[in-house]
């Protein structure tokens, strides 16, 4: 844990400086997690602020120190989930406004942007995004937390409040769905896995 429980208690009592310290301690970690979950750099800070905003208004409900980090993770997951749902709705709306030809042109333009080292990283990001775009937000976030953030099943248990076996089943199914998306026509090539 990056902060001690005394600091949290002080923040619970309404001490702004204590809350500031908590934010400063966890800010970078939360920004990183959100960046990987939502993959839109311009919105990362906004979502991170939403996480700390929710933390501020729910801090008085926290009773024990050991649940603080899973709880913060849960707030992060929920904020990212809300953002992705809104984003999906916005995208559907935007895409429905475009003609088929415009969509093809936009795709072609996006495909032609990449360059060298950053080009490779960008391609990886795009590949994962396109792959995970084929599954639900819930599957996407669960897989990200386990495989990218490296959280253990025990940690995930505390975040999702379900037992380990149920989590394993959910993870297995999420992987199956991603692999199915990977196996679908053209996706493998688009994902650049054969690199």
């Amino acid at each position: 844990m990056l902060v001690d429980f005394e600091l949290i208690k002080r923040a619970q009592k309404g001490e702004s400086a204590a809350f500031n310290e908590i934010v400063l301690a966890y800010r970078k970690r939360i920004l990183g997690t959100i960046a990987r979950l939502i993959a839109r750099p311009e919105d990362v800070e906004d979502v991170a602020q939403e996480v700390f905003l929710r933390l501020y208004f729910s801090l008085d409900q926290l009773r024990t120190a050991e649940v603080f980090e899973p709880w913060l993770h849960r707030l992060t997951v929920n904020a990212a989930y809300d953002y992705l749902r809104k984003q999906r709705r916005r995208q559907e709306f935007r895409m429905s406004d475009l003609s088929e030809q415009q969509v093809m042109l936009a795709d072609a333009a996006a495909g032609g942007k990449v360059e060298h080292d950053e080009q490779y990283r960008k391609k990886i990001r795009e590949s994962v995004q396109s792959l995970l775009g084929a599954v639900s937000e819930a599957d996407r976030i669960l897989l990200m937390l386990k495989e990218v953030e490296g959280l253990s099943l025990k940690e995930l248990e505390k975040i999702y409040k379900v037992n380990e076996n149920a989590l394993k089943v959910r993870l297995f199914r999420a992987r199956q769905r991603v692999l199915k998306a990977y196996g679908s026509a053209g996706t493998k090539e688009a994902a650049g896995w054969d690199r």
Partner: protein
Amino acid sequence: MNSMRGNDDARLDALLRAYRDACPTPEPSANFMPNLWQRIESRQSFTFSFQRMANAFVTAAVALSIVLGVYMSIPRSNSSSYSQSYLEALADANTLDTPDYVSPVRLDLSDPGR
């Protein structure tokens, strides 16, 4: 088939690991904390005004209940209808329209030849 599946699994793991390295952790901007506190304060002021409105509504509802309670509990001594019994009130309300049926029969016995 299984080896293909295993291969895909391994590739998926590798891709997700590569994704972690490909996503740089963004540095927070200088406005991160001021913006956060601004959002907290605006949410607080919204919550505060909502609470005040809710409190005012509850107070008004309680006051109205008390007024109604007092009004209902005051006995109405000047009203005659409440001092009567049910039967009396019923009798007053239904005055007899056909007195012939109930008035005493008068027999005229002065002229027996008729």
